[in-house]
């Protein structure tokens, strides 16, 4: 009765915000070869790669320098030729600002590459072979989450629809858009390879309606009936997997489930391009398009950057900083992370470097206007979650489904009182997780302590039993001796 969904023409997801684009779609340029390339061994929450080179080794571009022992981690490739000068702690692109082990490669200006092993006739290949090749080429989701693509292309359920995510809904970022304009045929090929691996019946490229040039580039590169190219409304966060699936098909996937459980798989358009390069050209993932933007650098550019390039080298390729350079954000303005220094190197997940002025308004009290609930794509009540996380009522936070928050930032941006909602929710989630961890480890310690006590008691018992036995034996001996004396 209160939904009025018959008034809306298109299928859409709940909430969302229309944000100003700020996109400058510049042509891709190649920055100069950096002197040093830095590769963190930390891949994700619980996955590290192991170096397979030593300090002093010379390596070629495309050579594997760190291996991964599970499908959940991908190997790290050298992105230029040179010498490994160190494996040491350097600050990494992580919100903690901590330093961690990195392989440091000093380039030798030659940029020599390993010979490639292309596989053009992919339809004659085994799907497992193609997945293995994708894994060994180091391909991860280039939309920002960096999940290993080979693992994602091995779902446990049958897939009927592959959606290539060309939405790029965050403001400022235009790397996917320029990639589509300049390399549409390769992207189509990559999409078809992925469709072949998944055996999906449908393949849809979803692109925002604010990108007409990229849309027509894709259309001209597609032969009829190969795949569909659909335009979606430019609302943030359309680019989120579940939101995009809901816009395209109307299916709303619950928060606890994966899209693959419903027969959908999403892949970023740059990932499709990387798959094409890996399979058709035999090239491992050594570079990606990064958008450098914001009023903090002299020239806004899309760069074809090598993975491992320090940020300062990319800034130099854009003629350097302006006086407005006050903060450095890796990613977009909604979900990016702030980096403390420009010595940090870009990683596979870096799609954008936004350099602009700090905007930190003073926050006021919540006026309970409810705008936050209107824009939440997960249909949560950020207002209630804020009251509870503010007063540290973690149980109530969990009750109001804080775990379903995707930290998109819509509520934060729309709040008239400028309350830092996303930060409050992140802290609340961390506290809840820590509490659960502590309870679990306390329960384990208690179990071990109980076992320890039981073991000691058992030893005591055995000791007593032995003592009794010995006493009884002595009594017996005494009795026998007494008997012998008598007789």
């Amino acid at each position, binding site marked *: 009765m209160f939904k009025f969904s018959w008034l809306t023409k298109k299928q859409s997801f709940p909430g969302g915000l229309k944000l100003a684009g700020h996109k400058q779609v510049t042509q891709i340029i190649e920055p100069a070869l950096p002197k040093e390339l830095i590769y963190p061994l930390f891949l994700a929450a619980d996955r590290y790669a192991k170096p397979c080179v030593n300090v002093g080794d010379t390596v070629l571009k495309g050579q594997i320098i760190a291996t991964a022992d599970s499908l959940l981690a991908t190997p790290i490739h050298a992105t230029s030729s040179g010498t490994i000068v160190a494996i040491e702690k350097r600050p990494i692109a992580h919100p903690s600002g901590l330093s961690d082990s990195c392989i440091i490669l000093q380039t030798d200006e030659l940029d020599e590459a390993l010979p490639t092993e292309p596989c053009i006739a992919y339809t004659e290949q085994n799907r497992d072979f193609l997945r293995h090749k994708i894994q060994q080429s180091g391909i991860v989701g280039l939309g920002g989450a960096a999940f290993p693509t080979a693992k994602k292309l091995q779902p446990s359920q049958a897939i009927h629809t592959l959606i290539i995510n060309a939405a790029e809904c965050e403001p400022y970022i235009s790397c996917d858009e320029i990639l589509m304009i300049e390399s549409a045929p390769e992207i189509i090929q990559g999409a078809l390879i992925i469709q072949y691996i998944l055996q999906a019946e449908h393949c849809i490229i979803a692109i925002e309606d604010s990108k007409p040039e990229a849309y027509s580039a894709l259309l001209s590169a597609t032969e009829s009936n190969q795949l569909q190219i659909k335009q979606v409304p430019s609302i943030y966060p359309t680019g989120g997997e579940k939101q995009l699936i809901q816009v395209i098909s109307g299916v709303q996937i619950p*928060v606890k489930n994966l899209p693959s459980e419903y027969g959908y798989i999403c892949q970023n358009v740059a990932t499709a391009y990387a798959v094409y390069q890996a399979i058709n050209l035999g090239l491992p993932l050594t570079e990606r398009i990064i958008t450098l933007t914001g009023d903090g650098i002299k020239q806004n550019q899309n760069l074809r950057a090598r993975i491992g390039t320090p940020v300062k080298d990319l800034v130099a390729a854009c003629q350097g900083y302006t006086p407005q350079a006050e903060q450095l*954000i890796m990613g977009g303005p909604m979900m990016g992370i702030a980096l403390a220094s*420009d010595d940090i190197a870009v990683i596979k997940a870096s799609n954008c470097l936004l350099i602009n002025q700090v*905007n930190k308004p003073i926050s006021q009290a919540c006026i309970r206007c*409810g705008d936050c609930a209107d824009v939440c794509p997960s249909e949560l*009540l950020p207002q*209630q979650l804020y009251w509870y996380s503010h007063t540290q009522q973690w149980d109530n936070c969990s009750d109001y489904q804080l775990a379903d928050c995707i930290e998109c930032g819509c509520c934060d941006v729309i709040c008239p009182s400028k309350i830092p909602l*996303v930060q409050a929710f992140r802290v609340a989630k961390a506290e809840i997780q820590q509490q659960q961890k502590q309870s679990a480890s306390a329960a384990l310690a208690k179990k071990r302590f109980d076992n320890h006590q039981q073991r000691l008691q058992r030893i005591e018992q055995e000791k007593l039993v032995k003592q009794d036995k010995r006493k009884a034996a002595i009594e017996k001996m005494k009795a026998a001796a007494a008997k012998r004396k008598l007789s």
Partner: protein
Amino acid sequence: MLFPTQSSPFSASNNSVQAIMQQVLFALIPAILTLFYFVGYSVLMQISLAIITALIAESLCLYLRKKPILSTLADFSAVLTAVLIAIAIPSIAPWWVVVNGTLFAILIAKQVYGGLGYNPFNPAMAGYVFLLISFPLPMTLWQDASIFLSFSDAINVLFEAVAIDGLSSATVLDYTKMQLRSGESISTIQASSIFGFIGDNNKEFVSLAYLIGGLFLYLKRTIRWHIPFAVLMGVFIPASIAYAIDPNIYSSPWFHLVTGATVCAAFFIATDPVSAAASIKGRLIYGFLIGFLIFCIRTWGGYPDAVAFAVLLANISAPSIDSYLRPKTKTQ
């Protein structure tokens, strides 16, 4: 080069508390101008007195609470409360009435609870009820809307307690209630000269002005349609049922909508986000409750106009409404 690190998002919208309050004040201008056109400078003086009192009271509280004064006053919420009280009370009430009401609203109903965002009750309505109970006589002497008070006359009435003949008259709600008690029927009552088209002579246009202001707020997306619609329906539906049962003792639903502060309550008072319910379904129920209570108290209660009491009663119910009507997310 080193940079400071903060958490995402790194962008903000133009939405702000100040912008919202300013838009509501802007939307009240048609009503204020209409009132001024009919009753003269008295209403402007009430508004000025209220604003000055509110700002002084709030500054004092903020100083005592060691909070930043100028930036908090700049959110215009005290000004809005003051204006709402000033246009709700009779325009010929002596100066100390509006000052007391505003002091109560700001100091007790708002600051004592913690300031903006923490007050459970609508401060303007809390102030109005305080005045109604403490000073019943000045609060029931309404200015006749066919008399335009000049500046000097207004000063005399408000500050020097000068009585002017025929200045005050009963409102239609007052008159209707009294006459119904004496056993008159609605048709006879509505033949009286104090009636205009449907409601008070001249004053009914103020309701129209409130409606225009309210529609402006809706189009600007400052308020959503749920609360105003629910309040108006809450008055209209029960009134229609009662009117259908016996048109002689129950006024028509249009009468209820136009007279008193119904339209003002629907668009400006009930929509105060701090004291209203938070969820969509909750807001519809909250609004309907206000409308229903307005109708009930007017028809069977002791007071001729019931908006303030209805709003306060609904404020008390808002947290319960919210906790029962929590929307479930799709996590199954």
